[in-house]
């Protein structure tokens, strides 16, 4: 529910932004000014997207199996403790995570990806774990009573039924990720943050906008993409978006 409202906010802000920009553009030669940075924008946008895709992809590839593993009965003892520490992890500001990863790995793309990964890992693990635990016991009993092995039960029953919750986690993670990527510039990771921060430093509003506008649009785009994926991938019978 909360996430839905945030998304609407995003769309709303996007609209207002476009509207204001439209008016401004009429008064000044904004478009020309912005297109001055076109080459940089394209290059940095690609880098920006790379950062999101690589760090987000790795976070999913680690987070889902980790959450799954923690939800298995044999890890029941340590799972709660692990989830508690992960929860504490989420309270650390993402900027601090980036700073910490820089002190660990130096500057460049690698610490940026590492930091972004850590920052977006937690919601994925947490939602995978709780999503799997929330699959009703009677479904699991029906599945094992029918003669499914533990593995068949995981792939055919548990994961499909937890998928919507897992996707919600991925969506949160991506929102955090996309919101943090501009900061990657601060530790030498590149991306559109370069235009934003340099624009602020040099007091060049158009430079800053040339970074901020694509950043905002990418955030909205990422959210839409993940929503579409959730719509398509989560099985119809357990997909609240498809009733």
């Amino acid at each position, binding site marked *: 529910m909360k996430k839905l409202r945030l998304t609407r906010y995003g769309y709303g802000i996007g609209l207002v932004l476009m509207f204001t920009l439209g008016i401004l553009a009429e008064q000044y030669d904004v478009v020309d000014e912005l297109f001055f940075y076109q080459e940089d924008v394209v290059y940095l946008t690609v880098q920006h997207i790379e950062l999101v895709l690589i760090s987000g992809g790795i976070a999913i590839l680690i987070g889902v199996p980790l959450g799954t593993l923690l939800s298995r009965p044999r890890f029941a003892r340590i799972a709660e403790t692990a989830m508690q520490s992960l929860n504490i992890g989420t309270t650390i500001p993402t900027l601090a995570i980036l700073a910490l990863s820089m002190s660990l790995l130096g500057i460049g793309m690698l610490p940026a990806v590492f930091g972004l990964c850590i920052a977006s890992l937690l919601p994925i693990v947490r939602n995978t774990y709780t999503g799997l635990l929330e699959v009703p016991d*009677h479904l699991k009993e029906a599945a094992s*009573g*029918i*003669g*499914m092995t533990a593995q068949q039960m995981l792939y055919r*029953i548990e994961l499909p*039924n937890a998928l919507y919750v897992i996707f919600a986690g991925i969506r949160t993670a991506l929102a955090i990720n996309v919101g943090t990527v501009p900061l990657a510039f601060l530790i030498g990771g590149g991306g559109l943050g370069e235009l934003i921060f340099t624009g602020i430093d040099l007091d060049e509003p158009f430079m800053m906008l040339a970074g901020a506008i694509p950043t905002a649009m990418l955030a909205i785009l990422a959210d839409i993409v993940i929503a579409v994926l959730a719509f398509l991938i989560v099985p119809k019978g*357990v997909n609240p978006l498809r009733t």
Partner: protein
Amino acid sequence: MIKIDNLTKIFETPNGPVTAADHINMEVPEGEICVLLGPSGCGKTTTLKMINRIIPPSSGRVFINGEDTTGLNTVELRRNIGYVIQQIGLFPNMTIEENIAVVPKLLGWDSNRYKARAKELLELVALDPSVFLKRYPRELSGGQQQRVGVARALAADPPVMLMDEPFGAIDPINREVIQDEFLKMQQELRKTIMFVSHDIDEAVKMANRIAIFRGGRLVQYDTPDDLLAHPKDDFVESFVGDDRALKRLRLVQVSQVMEPVAVVKPSDSLQTALARIEEHGYSRAILMVNEKHQPIGYVSRSVAQTTKGLCGDHYFGLKATTSPSDDLRKVASLMFNHDTTWLPCTDEQGVLVGRVTQQGITHYLGATYQRDALNAQSPHLHQVNA
């Protein structure tokens, strides 16, 4: 056939061990429904789940068709046992077709075969395949879901079915319907079924045999009629209820108490009718049939005594008829409704085959009790004689 040998389950709990099933011994013959019956917490579910090892037994053995299942691989064992649970447990991420085809898929059937099977089973449980195959469980009512649950359990045609309060979550009207359908199905399929219930009426209706549980022990294992006629102790007697004689009505078919009946034809005179009434000692009336021997009405004694003429001109219309396969509960209810002490029985073509009387019913139900009374007396007599 399911045979249970000294099956015991002791749960280790923080408050000490709980014996949920205590040396249970029983045997369910092939093709029969055995209902495990008893109050909540008496060990029915535990006993049932030890058969497919959802709950591993503490000790004892389970035989299926003569084979000791102890050594069998759990997955293998379960794929040969249909399992229906109270919460139904349809997989919400799968269509109805996929739900039914789960076990056939696990068994490696090809898709044409399991699709045909899903369709066939939906028809068997009285759901239209063209409507339901592609639907998801959440789009079905509780009763429809329960039917699919049964279809899923039947998918790979297992010889044995375990059902834990399968109709418990359905409203009473639909429950009756689904029970009837299930019984009809079972007449053809002849599965060996173990069925948990806490409802004596359901048990009496469904069971070939009833196993009464109390505190983890099997207290009585009998046919429904024997159980109702001879409850073993006070616990069983109170559990089956004060109206157990009435409950037995459902277990007896008209054919078991049917008597021959004298009739008149429309062309007979009222004098003949009176003579037959007297001859057979009928108190109020005699049945009239047409040339096909189908009952069409009654000629009453008082009319026959006071009037002259043909039966065909002086008769009352037929009130109700029964068929030989009706149970006595229905008959008793018809008798009350129509304020009559007997009813004609007809076959499918409406041809008269006999009659059923209140006296006949009372006599039939009483016979078992009288036999008891005699049995109870005879040792005593024996002693006196000796």
